[in-house]
Structure formats: C-alpha cells, structure tokens
C-alpha cells in the first residue's frame, strides 16, 4: 500500500472506491449512450467523481485539493454552458441530438 493510502481511514478508502466506480460509470455512459445530453451528464458525473477524490486526498495533503475542486466546478460550469449551446445549435440543424448522426465538422 502506498504511503498516502496508508494515511487514510476506512471511510476515505470507501470514498476513493465510490469515486472510481462513479468515474467508470461515467466512462461507460460516454462510450455507450448516443443521446448527447446524457453523454454530457456522464461527463459531469466523471467530474464529480474527480471532486470526491480531490476532497478525500485533501484530508491528507492539505486544503489545496478543495481549492482545486473550486476550479473544477468553474470549468464544469463553463463546459456545460458551451456544450449545451453547441447541442442547441446542432439540434437546430439536424432536429435530433443523436451523436451518431454528427459525422461532419462543418456544413
């Protein structure tokens, strides 16, 4: 066991396990689903999983992890706004949000 993990308690290990599981669920969603909105939500789920890991390690390594969570959330907000605007623009063109239908970069 690495020194960092040895300094953590049982609940922290459960938090890391939950984070890994949520991240894997998010990856599965991104790779498997076709609905662009749900794919975006899976990306948000992966960001939340990363936030859980950062908070858990901030208990050992100091409060900087929580500062990083703040930045992750700001980037997530920007990403959600721009991504949903792209989805709206694509929906106006194709009338669907099916990711398999988006094959060209420019029209």
């Amino acid at each position, binding site marked *: 066991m690495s020194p960092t993990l040895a300094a953590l308690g049982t609940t922290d290990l459960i*938090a890391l396990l939950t984070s890994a599981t949520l991240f894997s669920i998010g990856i599965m969603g991104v*790779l*498997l689903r076709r609905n662009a909105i749900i794919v975006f939500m899976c990306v948000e789920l992966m960001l939340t999983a990363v936030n859980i890991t950062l908070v858990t390690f901030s*208990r050992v390594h100091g409060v*900087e992890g929580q500062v990083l969570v703040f*930045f992750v959330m*700001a980037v997530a907000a920007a990403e*959600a706004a721009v991504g949903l605007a792209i989805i709206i623009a694509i929906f106006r063109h194709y009338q669907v949000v099916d990711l398999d239908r988006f094959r060209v970069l420019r029209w």
Partner: protein
Amino acid sequence: MITDFLFYLFAGGATLGGLLMVTRRNPVSAVMFLIATLFCASGMFVLLGAHYVAAINVILYAGAIMVLFLFVIMLLNLGHADWRDLRTPFGGLVGGAVAVAFLGLLARDLIGDVAPLAGSGRGAVMSVTAVEQGPIEAIARPLFQEYVVVLEATGLLLLVAIVGTIFLARRRSA
C-alpha cells in the same frame, strides 16, 4: 459510528444514482438521478470535512447546472424516449475494459501490500487548518494568495464561455 453509517449510505446512494442515471432512457429521469447522485456526493463532502465544497456542490451543480440541463431538454422537447440510444458493443467493450483496469489499479494499490487500514492519521492536516481558520477561510486564503492568477484565469474562462455561448446559441437570421 452513526457518521460512518451515513457515509456508507451516501456512498451507496451515489453509486446507485449514477448507475440509474446511465441506464435511464428518458433524459429527464436521468437528470433527476444525477441530482440525487450529486446530493449524495455533497453528503460525502460534509462527512469528509469539506463543508464549503458540499455547499457549492449543491448550489452550483445541483442548483444551477442541472437546471440548465433540464431547461435545454425542455427547450428542445427531448423529454421522451422513443429512439434507441445505445451505440455499438465496441464502445461497451472499451468502457468495460477501462472500468476493469481502473478498479484493478485501485485494488492493486489497496491490497498490494498487506498493511492495516490506519484510522489514526485521517483528517489530520485538514482538521487543524479548519479549526484554526474556519472552513471557508481555509479555502479562501490560498485561493486569493497562491492561486490568484489561476482565479483570474478562471474568470477569463467564464467570460469566454459566456461570449461563446451567446455566439453559438444565437439564431442566425439570414
């Protein structure tokens, strides 16, 4: 002891909510389960001692971003589930491989060397800082001192995001 039980409850709830979110066909139910997952994550944040993060998780994520998702679903009238939206099995294969590799790495790190799960060292640094300065000052101080350039860059990023969003969602009246 009760906090440990609550923590396991929140962890299980977050995992269950994530699973249900990915498997829902209707986007509105998926948003609802993602909100449940985010609330459970906030509960975990509180029990891990990160009260400020828990608060902005509920306010920013569950409150603002998820409402934005719901708003777009309503705007585009996507609240029905009449088309198949699973991709080819290849994506599932890759996703499953990544998940197994990820969990395997964690398991190897946990089980690789037989050491007892130390409960003594947990929260040492965090609790000292939080008790001395309070949960918000402990975050605000590094945010505005060491990370002030990053903070300004984040502000610039949000400005760019706003301008880009307005440009992208604008109705082209040509």
